[in-house]
């Protein structure tokens, strides 16, 4: 009865797979909660930083010699795409949706005759993109946020991007990451980092402050200490760090959410498969018993 034994083995293997996927789901759910809290707690800093950049940027707008990081290099030839993925797989469409977006952007840019450079944050981005864009990937940074995402790591990434920008390595920098919406949905977002798109100097993030700001008149005049230029030259690289930090946090939360959902699906599929296999197993066993009985009965009949 090798068939019965085969089925038993298969059922057991599916059962152990189910155990693994359900454990991964639990782990992802626990991590998701922490990552989500982290991403939400970091929002005040990013929104205030943005407000400050907008205020300084507003006052410097139109002045000659504004920092290149704010106004751009005046060219649009070389694009740097920062692809923000996970180091590990088994999280549904999380990594491939980033890869798809990057591929689409890169192909479009190339068709327009631009040069494309790709910086991968996370191993899976490189794995996915190296087949088509092996020569365009300038660097891969792995192991970010093994446990918690540190601000220092984001600053490190920002410093290397700034360095490259100062060396005229690119003109426009865009980061592609998954924005966390809920455990089920992640929105693949492309955000331009350099030149920094100054948002409207409005305050939507802080409801209580908005009416006060409005009463101060449309464009409040700030005192700057030191000069605007000096502040901007410190503020802009920091701001890139903060934007990257925020993207990494969002991406981490999305990753855990995506993994939780896909592992939940996998656990359910494994359950279905176990049910189906168990049914076949029982039928086969019953058939075997019936056959044996028939053999015994017909054997006894023959002896009469």
């Amino acid at each position: 009865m090798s068939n019965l034994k085969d089925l038993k083995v298969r059922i057991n293997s599916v059962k152990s797979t189910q155990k693994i996927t359900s454990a991964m789901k639990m782990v992802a759910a626990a991590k998701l909660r922490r990552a989500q809290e982290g991403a939400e707690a970091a929002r005040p800093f990013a929104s205030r930083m943005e407000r400050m950049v907008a205020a300084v940027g507003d006052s410097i707008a139109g002045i000659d010699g504004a920092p290149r990081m704010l106004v751009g290099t005046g060219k649009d030839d070389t694009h740097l795409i920062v692809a923000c993925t996970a180091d590990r797989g088994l999280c549904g469409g999380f990594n491939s949706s980033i890869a798809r977006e990057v591929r689409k952007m890169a192909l479009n840019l190339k068709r327009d005759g631009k040069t494309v450079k790709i910086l991968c944050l996370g191993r899976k981005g490189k794995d996915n993109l190296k087949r088509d864009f092996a020569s365009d990937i300038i660097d891969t940074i792995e192991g970010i946020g093994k446990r918690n995402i540190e601000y220092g790591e984001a600053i490190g990434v920002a410093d290397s991007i700034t360095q490259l920008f100062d060396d005229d390595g690119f003109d426009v920098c865009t980061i592609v990451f998954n924005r966390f919406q809920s455990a089920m949905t992640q929105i693949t977002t492309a955000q331009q980092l350099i030149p920094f798109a100054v948002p409207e100097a409005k305050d939507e993030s802080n409801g209580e402050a908005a009416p006060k700001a409005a009463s101060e008149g449309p464009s409040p005049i700030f005192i700057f200490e030191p000069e605007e230029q000096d502040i901007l030259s410190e503020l802009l690289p920091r701001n890139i760090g903060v934007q990257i930090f925020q993207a990494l946090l969002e991406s981490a939360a999305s990753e855990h959410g995506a993994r939780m959902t896909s592992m939940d699906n996998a656990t359910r599929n494994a359950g279905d498969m176990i049910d189906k296999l168990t049914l076949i197993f029982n039928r086969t066993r019953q058939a075997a018993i019936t056959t044996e009985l028939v053999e015994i009965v017909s054997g006894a009949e023959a002896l009469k």
Partner: protein
Amino acid sequence: MSETTTTDRVEFELVSPQRLLRSEPVEMVVVPGAEGDFGVLPGHSLLIATVRPGVIDIHEGGQVKESIFVAGGFAEVSPERCTVLAEEAVPVGDIDKAAAETRLENAKAALAKAEADPDATTAALGRELKAAEAMVAAVARS
């Protein structure tokens, strides 16, 4: 700093990249600006300044109620509010003196090593050294 403001307290916010650390009304707050310390009372004019590594003092009833060490950042001041964006912020009382001194030694060593190597960038290390120096000074002062 006019006397005519309606409120006698200024909303002080201290934000680190990880989270909002403080958000409370205070009487006065003294921030270590890059070009000198400045005190913020209600009705301060609009100001944006860079912050050097140092200590933020929160004043209550004419006395320093609390001191918080920051390793540099930015400050935005409006008549009602004083927002400090700090990359690192620790209450002075929580700083471990030995750890701060070790950090200073490490920063000095790292900078010396980087200066010997012409290819290395020293900007970040210089910042770290200044922060560590200010941290040790903050402990010594209290």
